[in-house]
């Protein structure tokens, strides 16, 4: 009981610090280049929070239900692009644009999920990969000049509330990202604890047995597919506001694979692990990029500079080591440290 209380106190304190971060004008040397309250730092933090939540949405699918999808970028990309297109091309208001993106993602998730879930295992992974690839190709080929193709699509801010425009208002975007993470976490914890959530986990453990008990795994899988797509699309909308536009990179298979890496890094199947993994991956990705262009790396001989200048190389290599030596990710490591103590 006391342990549970301690966890709650720590969580509440962390939340308080996160919410108050825009007012905390403190330097954290080594961790961030600038003071916590600076827009640059807040943007980095907001990206970490957003990807923590997007990774969480993927964990519902992969970690909780055991559905290995390689197409999660499709939902994130739909959130990014549809929100941006509705705002910039059609001059809608923000609320309508986000609702439109979410609605479209929900319809697409139900339709594509209904097809993809007819197969299981590896075939499911490849079908989701193919669907996401189709989306990515559409964005890249720029049909009717609507997506901006390779160049991406900037954000027309004239229909946005003033509170979200300009560097000075980065703190508002940061709070939106935090609110999104809290919403995604609340929905995820609630669903996983509910009856459908229990069936999801049962499907992961033994799908045949769920069938024998008289339930249709297909319905429950479609449910989790749609929920995780919705949460990811909302994350896409938040991300689009944060970075101020859409670039085709967010629709590619690389992002789907990165989400998988985030979840495994944090510990698949544990919700908080996925959040930590997503945030940490995003942090490393950004900071390694900064490291790559720093004097410390550009001064190195060419054979060292080539690998160290590529964040994805370092992340990929770390990931391989993680899978080989720390199965269970960060959450698994924490559990292993904790368990002996509990036994003692």
């Amino acid at each position: 009981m006391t342990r549970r209380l301690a966890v709650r106190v720590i969580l509440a304190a962390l939340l308080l610090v996160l919410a108050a971060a825009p007012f905390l004008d403190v330097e954290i040397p080594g961790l961030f280049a600038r003071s916590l309250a600076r827009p640059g730092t807040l943007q980095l933090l907001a990206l970490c929070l957003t990807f923590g939540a997007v990774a969480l949405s993927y964990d519902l699918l992969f970690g909780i239900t055991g559905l290995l999808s390689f197409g999660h970028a499709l939902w994130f990309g739909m959130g990014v692009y549809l929100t941006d297109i509705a705002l910039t091309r059609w001059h809608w208001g923000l609320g309508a644009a986000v609702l439109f993106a979410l609605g479209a993602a929900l319809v697409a998730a139900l339709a594509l999920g209904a097809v993809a879930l007819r197969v299981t295992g590896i075939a499911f992974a490849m079908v989701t990969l193919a669907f996401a690839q189709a989306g990515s190709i559409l964005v890249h080929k720029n049909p009717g000049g609507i997506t901006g193709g390779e160049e991406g699509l900037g954000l027309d801010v004239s229909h946005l509330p003033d509170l979200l425009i300009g560097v000075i208002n980065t703190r508002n975007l940061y709070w939106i990202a935090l609110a999104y993470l809290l919403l995604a976490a609340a929905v995820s914890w609630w669903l996983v604890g509910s009856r459908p959530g229990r069936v999801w986990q049962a499907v992961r453990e033994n799908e045949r047995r769920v069938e024998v008990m008289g339930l249709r795994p297909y319905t429950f899988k479609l449910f989790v597919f749609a929920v995780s797509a919705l949460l990811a699309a909302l994350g896409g909308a938040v991300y689009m506001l944060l970075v101020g536009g859409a670039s085709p990179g967010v629709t590619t298979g690389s992002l789907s694979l990165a989400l998988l890496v985030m979840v495994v890094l944090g510990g698949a199947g544990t919700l908080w692990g996925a959040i930590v993994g997503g945030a940490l991956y995003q942090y490393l990705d950004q900071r390694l990029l900064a490291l790559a262009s720093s004097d410390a790396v550009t001064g190195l001989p060419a054979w060292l500079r080539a690998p160290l200048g590529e964040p994805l190389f370092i992340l990929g290599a770390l990931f391989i080591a993680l899978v080989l030596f720390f199965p269970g990710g960060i959450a698994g490591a924490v559990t292993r440290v904790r368990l002996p103590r509990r036994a003692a």
Partner: protein
Amino acid sequence: MSTPVLLFVTGLGLGALYFLLAAGLSLTYGLMRVLNFAHGVFLTIGAYTAWMIATHVGGSEWVRFGLALGGSLLVGAVAAAAVELSLIRPLYRRHVEQILITVGLALALTALTQGAFGADPRPYPSPGWMDRVTVLAGADIPNSRLAAIAAAALVLAALAGFLRFTRWGTIVRAGVENREMVSALGIDVQRAFTLVFALGGVAAALGGALAASYFGNIDPQRGGDVLIFAFIVVVIGGLGSITGSAVAAAVVGVMQQFANYYFGVWWGFSAAGDLAVVALLAIVLLVRPQGLAGTAPA
């Protein structure tokens, strides 16, 4: 009349590249249930090896091409065997972890290639013959397409012969059918698997060297791009079946070319072929989830 012929043959050429990747994917999956996301990297490695050799050795253009091809096949085999022995084997029968390892490897090696050679495409010096055309039923077919088709046909025949007539081939076929039984008979399926993995690496590297001639350049993302279509080919063809993969590769490549040409005009953008392939995959899964040649649902 010449346009459909041109589309058909270039489509077969594209399908040939898909098949060179799909063959290895399908066999490794059939035998060990390992889905190799790093398989595209073998294609990239093959392409860059061929490029390095072709731009650094002397001799006539065919000597350089031969050396480049031989070198890339060798490097492809060594790289694939090394990956299997060092990364896949320690995770024996842990399928999700094996997939994750290959995902990490694909990310890391693609990034490494990009770091070493730059992200931009590099022109590839093919022999002049590759860029010239052969007239076939009134259509001007670029020779690089014919070379790809010939190579894929050769690989298909060689793999079929290997599977049909050799002892190792028998072990592989039996292993695809029922791995536990083969192991129970005291036969080391793991070694057969290493062999299959290396053969897959050779085919992929060959695909890389030919893709370099086919596209006229090499770039770090090419392997990953072709890999997605190879995955689709493997699923449509039926996991574990080489013949199924060959048929599916031909269908996918030809359909892609025709759709690009005929629907691309209507839809006003050039992705019609890619989208048609995804639609075909969806239809096949709805009608026949096990694929063309598969026996059990994947």
